[in-house]
C-alpha cells in the first residue's frame, strides 16, 4: 500500500476496546514503561472482549472513527475462560461483512495482548495507526450528520 504524503498530517480517530484483565493492563504496562504511541488512540475499557458488540464498532465508524481495534486476552487465557473465543468468531464475521460491503477491512483489527505485553500493545497501536493513516479518512461508513 502506498503511503500518501498528505496522510502524514492526517490525524485518525481510533477507538481501542480493551478487555480489563489482559489488554487494558497491557496498555497500562506500556504506559508504565513509557512506550509511546500516538494520542490518536483512545481506549475504552470493557470487562472482556466478548462484551464488545458489533454495534459498538459500527457506532464508532458512524460517529467518525477511522479505525477500531479490539484487544483481548490471548485465546486460552481469557479471565472468563471462553469469552475471547466467542469474540474471535464474532469479529471475524463482522469484519468479513464489512469487507463484503466494500468497506476497507484494514480499518478493523483484533489483537491479543496480555497484561505482560506492554511493548506489544504499543507496537500494535503504532502499526494500526500507520495502517489507518495510509487509508485516510473513513468515508464509506460514517454518518455525515455527525460531522461538524
Amino acid at each position: 500500500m502506498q503511503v500518501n504524503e498528505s496522510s502524514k498530517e492526517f490525524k485518525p480517530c481510533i477507538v481501542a476496546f480493551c478487555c480489563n484483565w489482559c489488554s487494558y493492563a497491557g496498555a497500562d504496562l506500556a504506559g508504565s514503561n513509557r512506550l509511546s504511541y500516538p494520542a490518536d488512540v483512545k481506549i475504552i475499557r470493557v470487562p472482556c472482549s466478548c462484551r464488545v458488540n458489533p454495534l459498538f464498532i459500527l457506532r464508532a465508524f458512524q460517529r467518525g472513527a477511522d479505525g477500531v481495534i479490539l484487544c483481548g486476552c490471548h485465546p486460552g487465557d481469557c479471565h472468563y475462560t471462553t469469552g475471547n473465543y466467542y469474540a474471535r468468531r464474532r469479529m471475524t464475521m463482522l469484519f468479513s461483512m464489512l469487507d463484503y460491503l466494500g468497506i476497507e477491512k484494514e480499518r478493523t483489527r483484533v489483537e491479543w495482548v496480555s497484561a505482560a505485553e506492554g511493548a506489544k500493545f504499543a507496537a500494535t497501536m503504532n502499526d494500526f495507526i500507520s495502517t489507518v493513516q495510509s487509508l485516510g479518512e473513513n468515508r464509506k461508513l460514517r454518518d455525515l450528520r455527525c460531522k461538524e
Partner: protein
Amino acid sequence: MQGIIEKVTELLDNGTVDRVLAWKAGEFSYDRTPAVFDKESGLYGLVYDSFCVNNLSKYLIEESKKDGKVLVLMKPCDSYGLNMLIKEHRVDREKIYVLGVPCKCKVSVDKIKATGLTGILDIVEEGNDIKVTTVYGDTTLDRKDVLCDKCMVCKDKVVVVYDEKIESDETAGIEKLDRMAEVEALEAMTPDERFNFWRSQLSKCIRCNACRNVCPICSCTKCVFDNDNTGISSKANVDSFEENMFHIVRAYHVAGRCTDCGECSRVCPQNIPLHLLNRKFIKEMNELYGTYQAGTDAEAKDPLTAFTKEDAEPSVIYNR
C-alpha cells in the same frame, strides 16, 4: 393438492387439529395469502400450488399461543425455519401438527412479469407450461424459466420436522444452481466495486421492515430498531450510514440462525438481494467453522454460540 385437502379434512374431522394454517387463493390466479381455516369456516379457498410461496413457519409463533392445535402445511424449505423456532422456544411444538407437503419449486409472478407480460388475467399451469392470459394477448412460458430465484438454489426437498408428510416424486426438472455463486461473484470484485454495488442496492431501502417482519428468525419481542432505549432505533434511513447499519445488524443478528429461506429478498419491494448478506455469513461460517445448516435440527449449537480453540483468527479477513 387433492391429497392434502383430504388429509386436512380428515384431521380436522377426527379432532386431531382445531385449525389449519395454509394458503388462500386471492383475486388473481397468482396471489396467495396465508390464512387460517377451521371447521366453521371450512376449507373454502385453501390452495396449494406453484404460487404458494410464503413461509408459514413464523405465523406459528402466534398460532401456537392460541388454544387448541393448529395444523400447518409445511414446505421443505420452510421447515428449517420451524426447527429454529422450536430450538429458540418461540413456538409451542405440542400445539402444532406439521403436515409436510412436497414442493416442486415455486413460480415467481415477478419473473413472469419480467418477461414483459402485464395485465395478467389468468395463469394456468399445465405440466411444464405456464399459460398466461393477459389483456394484451396470450403467451406460454416454460415453467423452468420463471421459477423463484430461491428455488433455483433449493437446499433440498426434505421436510425436516413433521408429524406426517405427503410425498410426491414430482420435481421441477431443473439443474440446481450453485447457491454461493452470487456471493463468489461479489467476492471476486474489488472493494470499491463491491461498495458501489451495495450502495446502489441498499440505497433503495425504504425501511418498510418487510424483510424483518417476514423473517422467521427475526422474531424478537421488540426489535432493537424499534426500541428507543437502544440508541440505534430509527424509522427511516436519513443518512446512507443507516441503510448500511440496518442491514448489517439484521444480517448479523440472524447469522448462524438464518436458514436461507429467501423470504427477505422475495418480499423486498425494492428487490434488494438481501439474501446475499445472509448467504455471505453462511458461506464464511461454513468455510471457517465447518458446514452448518441452521434448522436441520432443533438442538445443534449455531456457529456463533460455539467455538473451537483452533478457530481462525479475525486476521484471516484483513490479511486476505
